[in-house]
């Protein structure tokens, strides 16, 4: 189906560097991985494994969803590339609420490729979403792998993203602690000097 020649234009239906790097690290026996959290580390060379597990992939990882985006919305958009066989929403490991990613499984590999080409990088619920070919959903992967239960990227994000719970949770936590500390300090101050004001 594909020409052996390199195309004169890049293709959008290739797996991201994330997948490649993940594979590589797996072979190197490094432990955890979480896609959006580690994508910056994706500087590995594309090294083709002998049997490409994505060769007939029908599943896509979908990232950068809003926590409020519903299954129905995902269905409405992703059905434009073919009938959806299964949809698994990503959930916060502790709260069991959507945490901004999902797995969409199609019936055919072609539908999944088309989705990469035509839907990845467009908007759903007014957010640019990211799609990546995926070797297939396995039980357990629906949960966020961040410390506090969501995705890793939502731990340390220092921008305020309303659709994804505001600030990164670790940072939020830190700030809360600071506020808490300050308040304590303030209280001390108040106790000590308050009446003088």
């Amino acid at each position: 189906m594909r020409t052996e020649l390199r195309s004169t234009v890049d293709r959008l239906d290739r797996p991201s560097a994330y997948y490649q790097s993940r594979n590589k690290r797996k072979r190197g026996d490094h432990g955890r991985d979480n896609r959006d959290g580690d994508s910056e580390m994706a500087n590995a060379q594309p090294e083709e494994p002998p049997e490409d597990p994505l060769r007939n992939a029908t599943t896509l990882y979908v990232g950068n969803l809003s926590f409020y985006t519903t299954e129905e919305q995902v269905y409405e958009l992703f059905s434009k590339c073919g009938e959806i066989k299964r949809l698994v929403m990503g959930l916060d490991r502790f709260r069991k609420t959507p945490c901004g990613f999902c797995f969409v499984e199609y019936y055919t590999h072609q539908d999944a490729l088309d989705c990469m080409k035509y839907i990845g990088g467009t908007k759903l619920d007014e957010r640019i979403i990211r799609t990546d070919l995926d070797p297939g959903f396995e039980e357990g992967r629906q949960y966020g792998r961040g410390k506090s239960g969501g995705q890793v990227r939502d731990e340390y994000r220092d921008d305020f993203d309303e659709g994804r719970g505001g600030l990164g949770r670790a940072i939020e936590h830190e700030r809360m602690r600071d506020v808490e500390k300050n308040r304590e300090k303030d209280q001390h101050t108040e106790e000590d000097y308050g009446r003088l004001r």
Partner: protein
Amino acid sequence: MADHDRRQPGGGFNSRKRRYRDDDDYDRRPQRRRYDAPLPVRIRKQLLGLAESPVRRWHEEVQSIAHVVADNYDDQELRTSFLDLVPQMVIEQPLKTPFVAAVVLVINSLKPDMLDELLVRVTSATEEKVKVGEWRDVKLYLKFLACLQSCLDGDGLFPFLDELFNRAGDLQTASSDDTIGTELVKIILLTIPYIMSAAPVEQWQQKAAELMDKTDVIASEPHALQVLIDPYHATEGTESPTANMSLIGLLQKQLQNEASNGWELSCLPRPWQMPLEEIEQQEKLDNAQKHTLPSISIPEKVIAGPRPLFPEVYFSVYVTQEIESVPPVSSIASSIIRDALLDTINILDFNRNVTARFLIDVDCYFAPGTFIKRATPFDRLRDIEGGRSTWKPEDVAVDAVFSQLFQLPIPEHKLVYYHSVLTEACKIAPAAIAPSLGRAIRYSYQNTYRLDLELCYRFLDWFTHHLSNFGFMWKWTEWVEDVNLPDMHPCKAFIVGALDKEIRLSFAQRIKGTLPELYQVLIGPEKEQDTPEFKYNDEHTPFSAEGKELATLLKRKAPDEEIQPIIDRIHSAALDQAIDPLVTSTDVFMTAVCWVGSKSLSHVLACIERTKDRLLDAGAASEAARAQIITAVMSYWSAHPGVAISIVEKLLNYSIVTPLSVIDWALVSDRAGPHGQALSKAWVFELVFNTVVKVTGRLRQVVSGGMGEGAEDEVAAMRDLFKGMEDALISWAQGTKDQMMDPVVVDGDEDLVKRWGERWLRVFRRRSAIEEAFLLENKPAS
């Protein structure tokens, strides 16, 4: 001089050239090895980027590449890479073909050996494509060879075109339904202008005239299948705007026009023509060695190839404007530019960003002066004087994409691809593209009443998807008067359908916020409710107690033994009231399933999965029970038909309901809307259309898999389905439907209903015809 200026210190860093030069001189980052990239890599990069710059120094780019290739012709790697790349460029980036040809022509003037090698490659590639019926690739190779006509011996490309025509003639004589012959004639007619732009000598004018004399018979005759794929479905007593817009018919006339104007072909670029100061190079070009074109053989039996062929109709959303913002159909430019754009769009589906870039840059690839400056507002076109072009590049680009969205029976790629191209184009150049899209939308909206109904649905789907990428912003105020039209009016039906689709991609409150006051009534409070009420929670609903009990059992995943007693209770109560027991229990049960699963599609699907045996039994028991399953889903989700449609789709997969029961439910019973109102609802069309696509898709899979076991049954089932639709729709279309005869309802809506019926009928008759044609082509050889 320029160099000197650039070397002035403190000149800022806004000049790309400057930085490039500086880096070249001092090369501060040697580790990157950017500037000693091997020759083949450099040439590849230059060739791929050919003509992209809006500065239009074509001759410089062309000569620069040509000289490097010619000077290093002994570099085996460079030569191979160049000879590989040229044919590939021609197939993948067709807008650049004339420029690639110019490079080759200049090389020929320096190192004529190269051309022999290249011609062998291109002609054998062409032959290969002819063999497998990849007609677009054939056309693209021929376009390239046509641009090389000036360095070809003898009659150049003409003998091959003659041969192609002979085949076309034979095919057309053999069958009036033939589409390969039509395709071949199209290829011939689209190749001629490139020959004439490359070699405008008198000898070729004669040859072209002879060829066109021959094609005239086929090109001027309307094709038998054209009515089937006309994007318009004209109302009675009127003519379709595209009735006389057969692509090859127009081409034939446009070329005759050109011939009588001495083949001006003013839109085509001629990068092989050197400016006056390059007189030396021009002389070399004029006197370059000529080569014999290796022959390209055509197999005994030509085939249609992987994509079914249909005659083509030229479609434009801008033709009715008072000022020309796109080439008129009388001009060959309309066909040539459209052809090159469509090839670009359909070939590059694997990178919509690049496609969009090509669309925005379309003016780079045609002769200077073909278009007006980019992003010129439409209103400004009025002020253009002195016969200068008023063609807006954005309009031409958008028009091309719309012609694919509105292509019947189906465009080459999934519709969402064309959506994504428009989205990207809009992202790259919003100020230029958005107003063009606005006019395209207005045109389509004003013409919904006569557009083919399938295309109306496509338009609706695109429109709402597009808005969802741009904050749902649309000037709804301009259609505000249509809000008060009856719901069955095509414009009102579009508005209602669009709002529903928008809500599906977003949520009701958000969409309400984008609408003017007068539209607010169209989004009722039920749409803002995420989870519809469970009707059995109301004590007054018959079987309220049973409904609630069933819901509780389903929630705690109780085994079927616990469910059965309640169903039995409903049955006996129903018998007492002399109503259908199974229908009654099915309503309660299915509604309870919906309610229990109302949290999300996953929930309802899991619930259906758990109860599928019961549902299967109910569905299998009677027609009425099957219909009731659908009714229960549809009424529970009446405010969110998108959810209902998804559920029905899964019920079809489980064979709990049958395709025919869906069709009956939607078109025969009054359940989807009384007195034929169902026909005007976009979601009813979607439900039926998806069901039909599911059936035909499965059939195609079976047939392509070699007509195995059960294929005959599938074929029969499909024919039953179409027959059922025909029967249902024809009575609407002819006004003989009982519901229409009811004197209470006839209040002028009758004509509207009939029209909707006709439009539905046309869509599904076409689908049926296409499936039959597919079966015919794929009949087992036995």
